[in-house]
């Protein structure tokens, strides 16, 4: 079933280039401003602890964080399904903090899809339009239009329980998009799908968002997904925003150890002493770009595995370390090495360009450019 689905979507996205009557430019999109949002569940559980966030019009914005970080609560506040205890929410210049969900021009793609099982796919798609009082003929035309746009094909005439997970996901997306909301919210919409289908739908979602130019707020706990999809990412933890930035900013310059860990970095080393252009870590003394200096004495040094070179030519001024290969993981396009330096574990990744592979136990010279080293707050 899912293989079929994958093939079908792959076919759609290649056979139909992104041309169509809808165009991002002539479509309204809304910005979102959140200020001081607080939310508690029960007496002790703090879900949001003062969130200030601005999302630009037409942006693909991702709320990223581990479970329980408050990302879903924030999304539900945007949808109006949850009321904040304090703070304000402005969408498209209008304060909608107190507006009930059915009066907000905001639609949601739910994690469980939440399709109505007693209705046909067509009725599901037309639901929002019907609730807004659109006439039947007009509704049908809209359903046909969205079915064409999302390439639903004959799915429209099926019953909900005849659909696979991927198909349900696309119906849920179409059901929200058909209402042409100011903002579309997506609550981990791809988390229930298998890997292949997931990446196909990521591409499709991006295509839809770029074509419509609609503001998308996407929730996920998968940092890879967040980086692929987003214009900007907000990383949340413990109900507060840790960092907001483009995917490369967040990945390459995480502001603290939490963000660094969450973005998948392993090579974090405690800084024991620092001067203008060097730091002492467990690995030894390393030179870094003076511009990278932070005020705080304590903190972490982040070394991205892909910036390390093993046994290569070492230009003037580069850091040089000695280590042994403890583990080698062959991943096809790249090779990962776990090295031991001064008794510490250090990950390195080399693109597989046909060079000689290092064997376990080999002594290697590791070099890294000072500009690639990043200081991270605790």
């Amino acid at each position, binding site marked *: 079933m899912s293989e079929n689905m994958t093939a079908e979507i792959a076919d759609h996205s290649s056979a139909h280039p992104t041309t169509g009557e809808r165009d991002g430019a002539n479509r309204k999109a809304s910005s979102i401003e959140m200020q001081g949002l607080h939310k508690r569940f029960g007496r002790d559980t703090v879900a949001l602890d003062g969130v200030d966030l601005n999302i630009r019009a037409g942006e693909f914005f991702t709320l990223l964080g581990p479970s329980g970080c408050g990302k879903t609560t924030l999304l539900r506040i945007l*949808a*109006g*399904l949850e009321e904040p205890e304090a703070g304000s929410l402005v969408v498209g210049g209008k304060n909608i903090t107190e507006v*009930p*969900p*059915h*009066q907000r021009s*905001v*639609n*949601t793609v*739910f*994690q*469980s899809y*939440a*399709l*109505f*099982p*007693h*209705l*046909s796919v067509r009725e599901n798609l037309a*639901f*929002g339009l019907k*609730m*807004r009082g659109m006439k039947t003929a007009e509704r049908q035309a809209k359903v046909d239009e969205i079915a064409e746009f999302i390439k639903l094909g004959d799915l429209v005439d099926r*019953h909900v329980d005849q659909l696979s997970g991927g198909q349900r996901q696309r119906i849920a997306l179409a*059901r*929200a998009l058909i*209402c042409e909301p100011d903002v579309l919210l997506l609550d981990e919409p791809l988390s229930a799908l298998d890997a292949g289908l997931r990446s196909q739908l990521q591409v499709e979602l991006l295509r839809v968002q770029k074509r419509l130019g609609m503001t998308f707020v996407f929730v996920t706990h998968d940092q890879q997904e967040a980086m692929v999809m987003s214009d900007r990412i907000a990383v949340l933890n413990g109900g507060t925003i840790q960092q907001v930035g483009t995917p490369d900013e967040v990945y390459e310059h995480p502001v603290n150890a939490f963000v660094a860990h969450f973005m998948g970095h392993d090579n974090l080393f405690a800084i024991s002493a620092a001067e203008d252009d060097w730091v002492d870590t467990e690995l030894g003394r390393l030179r870094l770009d003076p511009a990278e200096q932070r005020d705080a004495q304590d903190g972490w040094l982040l070394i991205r595995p892909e910036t390390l070179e093993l046994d290569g030519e070492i230009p003037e001024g580069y850091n040089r370390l000695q280590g042994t290969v403890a583990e080698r993981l062959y991943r096809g396009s790249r090779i990962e090495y776990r090295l031991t330096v001064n008794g510490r574990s250090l990950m390195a990744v080399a693109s597989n360009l046909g060079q000689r592979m290092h064997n376990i136990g080999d002594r290697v010279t590791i070099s890294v450019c000072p500009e690639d080293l990043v200081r991270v707050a605790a």
Partner: protein
Amino acid sequence: MLQSSPMAWRRRAVVSETRHLLFSVAPGAVWIFIFLVLPSAYLMGVAFMTNGPYGLPQMPLSLASFERLAGFGFLGWSPGNLYTLLRSLWQTLVSTALVVIIAYPVAYYITTCREKWRPILLLLVVVPSWTNQVIRAFGWMNLLAPGTPLSDLADALGLIGPHMGLYPSNFAVTLGLVYNFLPFMVLPLYAAFEKLDTAQVEAAQDLYANPIRAFWHAVFPQTLPGLLAGTVLVAIPAFGMYVIPELLGGGKGMMLGNLVANQFAESSNWPLGAAGAILMLIATFIGLFAMRRIGKRLGGGEEVVI
């Protein structure tokens, strides 16, 4: 020899499977035959026989019982039996509707309570039905009889004639039926509410449904299977109810069950009683069929009634 042996083995397997099936199904089949098929056939037979001098069925076969049931007696046509049928239908309809109106919020309320309280609240709903029906009917008689506070209040409000009392009356029968069958509606509705998919309700709100429409489009369809199951559990026994109209209804509160019972007892007319029982059976089947159709339409083509 070599070729035939797998065939023989297969045949033996089929035989043993058939025998196994026979043994496992037989007790149930015998039970159903003795306690359902035979009595039903007997009832059918009796309904088409003539009433004998002591109320016992006799030959020849005739349609006399059905004619009497339709109201044609020695003195020409009288609407008595028709009224009884209509009263049964009306009492069933009204009491089922009232049961739904009361049980729906009660079942919902219980699901909103803390988890540890729910079994206790459900128990409170069920416990009254552990007492014998007759005793509970007598209880209502004491509460509703002339001169009791409730009757005096109704009297003072001008709802009933002076010194009439709320019992015996059709009202007392309705009250008795509602009271008696309430748990049978609360339980299936509670089960439906407990597994309610709240995401659907949120989706409806998100798609511009105000609270009332969100209820109607996202909550109600989800509780429909429970509602219809409850309706079957309430309406069918209520339609055939004997004890409550007998005790609370008085002469003018008779229902079909009392009509049938009377023919087998005081009136000593078994064929007429049997004909009445068949009428009840047919009416019940029509009701069930209608419920299935309604369930199928509202449930989007899905089977929602047993």
